[in-house]
């Protein structure tokens, strides 16, 4: 998700092509071409400019509803709804086409779904099915301790720095009800990364952005990426 304002100019984007499985966008205001995955203009008057990343989440409707009861949902475009894929389109896609690029490293399939994090000077990828199986992953990215927490729906994942603001590094453990306890204060933390009771109540952990992507695509744009326990 990207901001549309660049140097005070409001841009409107159109789909312009496919570039190595990601797509290209064109803004109608300057005719520049932008890469979807990096938010960077690669051709045209604004070439070299980067859009501002807007933090967003990918999570189940159920979890989102419980967190944002006053939220609003995008409506189907009239007349188009019949064309939307059946609900398991991403599962079906996994089984079909060959990819244009091949990175048979770490024994990973090209279309293996990964959670990619680029932060703290490093890029690291986690197998999605492994993360939701482990429910709470404690790891390092660069030299920063980071946790990946799976929600109570068993599908949604968020990443946070494993550091309580004003207290410091800590260790988190998962409780059966999908909340976490930290070893420094014993407080209970929810899926939003905020402490709901205990000494740290009211504090929230710093979110780290995750991109859900196919392995070959993540690896193509992050050649130096490491992988969390690929054979684990």
């Amino acid at each position, binding site marked *: 998700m990207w901001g549309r304002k660049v140097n005070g100019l409001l841009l409107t984007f*159109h789909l312009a092509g*496919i570039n190595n499985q990601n797509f290209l966008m064109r803004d109608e205001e300057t005719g520049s071409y932008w890469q979807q995955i990096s938010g960077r203009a690669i051709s045209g008057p604004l070439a070299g400019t980067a*859009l501002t990343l807007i933090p967003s989440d990918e999570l189940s*409707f159920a979890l989102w509803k419980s967190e944002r009861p006053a939220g609003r949902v995008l409506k189907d475009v009239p007349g188009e709804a019949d064309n*939307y894929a059946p609900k398991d389109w991403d599962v079906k896609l996994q089984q079909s086409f060959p990819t244009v690029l091949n990175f048979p490293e770490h024994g990973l399939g090209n279309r293996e779904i990964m959670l990619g994090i680029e932060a703290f000077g490093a890029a690291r990828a986690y197998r999605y099915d492994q993360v939701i199986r482990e429910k709470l992953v404690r790891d390092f990215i660069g030299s920063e301790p980071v946790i990946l927490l799976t929600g109570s729906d068993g599908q949604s994942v968020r990443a946070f720095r494993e550091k309580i603001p004003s207290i410091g590094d800590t260790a988190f453990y998962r409780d059966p009800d999908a909340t976490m306890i930290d070893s420094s204060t014993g407080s209970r933390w929810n899926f939003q990364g905020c402490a709901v009771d205990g000494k740290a109540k009211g504090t929230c952990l710093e979110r780290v952005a995750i991109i859900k992507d196919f392995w070959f695509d993540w690896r193509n744009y992050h050649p130096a990426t490491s992988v969390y326990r690929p054979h684990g």
Partner: protein
Amino acid sequence: MAIRRNRVCLIALIISLAVALFLIAYPNYVIRPQRHQASQELQAALLVLRYQRLAELLCAAIALGALGILLRSAPGRRARVSAIVAAVGTVLCAGLSRFNVYEIMFHPAGAPSFQSISETRLDAKEMVLAVSLNNDSRAYPVRTIAYHHIVNDVAGGIPLVATY
């Protein structure tokens, strides 16, 4: 003199047609879903795209001009037919350059509209892309934006583009 002029016109027609065809074919050849694009050829293809309409108009203008000059001298049938075919071909390419095949295939979402949670019929398990800005929380069902790919929106007063 007439013969030389006609020859020049025919050559101009052939070149216009060839250039017009190249300007359409090259970007569509390079920017294809099942093909890897190296950085330099992508830059070249995008450069062609940026100037495509203008260049196509130029080709069409040259072709039509050459056709006009040629026809005035009442050339033989073969020359006349080739010239007309070349000119028509060039004009068709110019027409094609006005279309973006990706926008045609992938149906941009246009101005998005939203509904409350109670009005929404989505499975609990369906994934949404969610954003919350200045107390404005919006969810974009992945099934919907995976089809349209791009949604230009404003949330919490902040203009954003949701992509998938």
